[in-house]
C-alpha cells in the first residue's frame, strides 16, 4: 500500500530528478514555482512522460522505462484537480459531471448518478451554468465533483488555491479539507504555500530546482530541517553560518558573532544554525541572552517584524507590545537552546 516514484526528465536548462516512497495517504510537495513539482504530479497522473525511471502505486506499475510500461492516464484512475480547474467550457456544470460519468458508467466505477453528485457537492443552483459564469470557488467545487464522479483511486491537487484571492482561499481550504475528510485514499497536494501543505499533509517532500531536498514526516521537517535549503523552504527567517566551539556551543558568525548554547549536539558537519522568528523570547533570564540594540520595526496589521541590531528577525503579535510607550522592543532577548536548529549547507 504505497506510492513509489523514481523519475528523471531532462528539459533545456532544467533537469527533474525526483524519488520518494511513502505509504502516507496525505502527501505534500512544497517548493517555489518552477521547481518541478507540477511536472512530478503530472508524471504520476500520466499526462507527462518522464525520460526514465519508475512509478508504482499499491500493486500496479504505472510507468517503468526499462520494461516499457506506460499505463495511459485514462487507465490510472486518478482524480486530478487542475490549477485552472480545466472545466470543459462548452458544457454546463451538469454536462461536465456527466462527461466523467459517461466513461465511469462503462467501467462500473461511478460514484452515483449526476443528480446525486450535484446534490452531494451543493451544485444544484448552478448546474445549468457554463463554467465561465461561475466564481473561482464554484469552478473548483465543480471540478472536484467531476473528478469524484469516477471514484478515483488517488487524488492529485495542483496548487488548488493559487488562482484565488486570499480572502476566498481560507474558506476554500476548509471546504476542501472537509470534502477530503470523507476520502480515505491517497491524496497528493502540490503547493508553494507552506501553510496549506502543513495543514493538509502528513508526509512532506521539499523540492528545489528539480530535486528533492528533503522528505519525511511533515512535523519533523518543519521542526528539524536538516539543511539550510529545507529550513528556508519551511519558512525559517534566521539562518547564520556558525563556528563550532564545542559539543553544545556555537558561534553565530552572521549574528555579530554571539555564542549560543544548543540542546542538540553540534557534530563536525554542522555549518549553519537557524532560529524561527517567533521562537526568540524577550527578557534577560536564562541562557543565550543578547542585547536588542538598535532595532528596526515593521508594523504589520497584527504582528510586528523586528529586525534586531545583530541581524536577527523577531516576530511578535502586536497586542502584546502595543502599549503606546516607546519601549516596544525590550532591552534583552534570548534564544532557548532547544529552539536552535542545526543544519548542513547543501549546495547553495
Amino acid at each position, binding site marked *: 500500500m504505497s506510492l513509489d516514484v523514481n523519475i528523471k526528465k531532462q528539459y533545456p536548462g532544467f533537469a527533474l530528478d525526483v524519488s520518494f516512497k511513502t505509504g502516507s495517504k496525505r502527501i505534500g510537495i512544497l517548493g517555489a514555482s518552477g521547481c518541478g513539482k507540477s511536472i512530478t504530479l503530472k508524471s504520476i497522473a500520466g499526462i507527462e512522460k518522464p525520460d526514465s525511471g519508475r512509478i508504482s502505486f499499491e500493486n500496479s506499475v504505472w510507468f517503468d522505462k526499462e520494461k516499457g510500461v506506460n499505463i495511459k492516464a485514462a487507465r490510472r484512475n486518478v482524480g486530478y484537480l487542475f490549477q485552472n480547474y*480545466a*472545466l470543459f467550457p462548452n*458544457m454546463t456544470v451538469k454536462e461536465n459531471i456527466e462527461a*466523467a460519468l459517461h*466513461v465511469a458508467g462503462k467501467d462500473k466505477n461511478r460514484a452515483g448518478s449526476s443528480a446525486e453528485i450535484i446534490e452531494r457537492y451543493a451544485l444544484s443552483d448552478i448546474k445549468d451554468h457554463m463554467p*465561465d459564469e461561475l466564481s473561482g470557488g*464554484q469552478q473548483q467545487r465543480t471540478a472536484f465533483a467531476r473528478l469524484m464522479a469516477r471514484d478515483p483511486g488517488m487524488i492529485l491537487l495542483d496548487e488548488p488555491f493559487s488562482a484565488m484571492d486570499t480572502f476566498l482561499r481560507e474558506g476554500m481550504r476548509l471546504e476542501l479539507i472537509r470534502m477530503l475528510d470523507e476520502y480515505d485514499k491517497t491524496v497528493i497536494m502540490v503547493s508553494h504555500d507552506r501553510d496549506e501543505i502543513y495543514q493538509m499533509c502528513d508526509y512532506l517532500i521539499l523540492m528545489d530546482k528539480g530535486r528533492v531536498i528533503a522528505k519525511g514526516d511533515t512535523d519533523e521537517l518543519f521542526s528539524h530541517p536538516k539543511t539550510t535549503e529545507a529550513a528556508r523552504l519551511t519558512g525559517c527567517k534566521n539562518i547564520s553560518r556558525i563556528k563550532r566551539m564545542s559539543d553544545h556551543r556555537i558561534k553565530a558568525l552572521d549574528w555579530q558573532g554571539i555564542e549560543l548554547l544548543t540542546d542538540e549536539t553540534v557534530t563536525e558537519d554542522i555549518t549553519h544554525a537557524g532560529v524561527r522568528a517567533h521562537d526568540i523570547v524577550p527578557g534577560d533570564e536564562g541562557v543565550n541572552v543578547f542585547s536588542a540594540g538598535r532595532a528596526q520595526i515593521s508594523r504589520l496589521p497584527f504582528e510586528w517584524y523586528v529586525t534586531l541590531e545583530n541581524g536577527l528577525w523577531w516576530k511578535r503579535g502586536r497586542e502584546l507590545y502595543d502599549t503606546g510607550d516607546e519601549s516596544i522592543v525590550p532591552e534583552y532577548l534570548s534564544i532557548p537552546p532547544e529552539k536552535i536548529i542545526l543544519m548542513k549547507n547543501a549546495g547553495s
Partner: protein
Amino acid sequence: MDFFPLYNSLRIAGISTLIVVITGIAAAWYIVRLPRIIKGILDCVFTLPLVLPPTVVGYLLLRLLGPRRPVGAWFMSAFGIKLTMTWWSAVFSTAVVIFPLMYRTARGTFEAFDITLKQAGETLGLSGPYIFFKVTLPYCKSGMIAGCVLAFARALGEYGATTMIAGYTPGRTATISTTVYQLWRTNNDGLAAKWVIINLAISAVVLLIINLMEGRSGRIGTVRSSGKNES
C-alpha cells in the same frame, strides 16, 4: 446579362476553399507540434503568399505549371492536359493565395487551445475520440469557420495570380474580378458597375457572417481565466 462570371467565381472560390480547409488545418495541426526552429521556417513559407503580390505568385505558378515548364510539360505528355488558361487553373492560383488565411487562423486556434482540457479529459478516463469531438473540436470550431469564411471571401476577390494563369476568356475563364477589369477597359461602365455591386453584396454578406460567428464564439472563447471572484 451573362452570369457566367458569377458562377465561375463561386465554383473557383468554393473548390479552392475546400482545398485549403483541408490542407490549411492539416498544416496547422502538424506545425504546432514541431520544434521551434523548423516551426519558424515552415511558418514563413506557409505565410509567404499573404505578403507577396499576387502577380509574383502568378509568375511562380507559371514557371511551374506552364506548358513548357517541369510540372506542366509532364502533365501535357502524360495526360494531354494543359494546366494553364483553363477555369480550374484559377483554382491553383486562388488556393495558393488564400492558403495562409486558413492556415494562420487554424494555427492560432490550435495554439489557443487549453491543453489542460485535453489532459483533464484523459485523467477522467475519456477516450481520445471523445475528447477530440466533444472538447477540442467545439473549442476550435468557431475559429475554423471564421478562417474558412475569410478564405472564401478572399478567393472571390482574387485577381492578380488568376489573370496570369487563367487569363480572361469570356464564357470560359472569366471571373467577376477579371470581368470588371475587362468591362472598365472597354468603356462598358454600366455593366462594370453592376458587377461591382454584386461583388460588394457578396463580400458584405460574408463579412456579416464572420462577425456573427465571432459574436457567438465570445461565449466559449474566454474560458481560460479562472473566473470571477466569489461574492
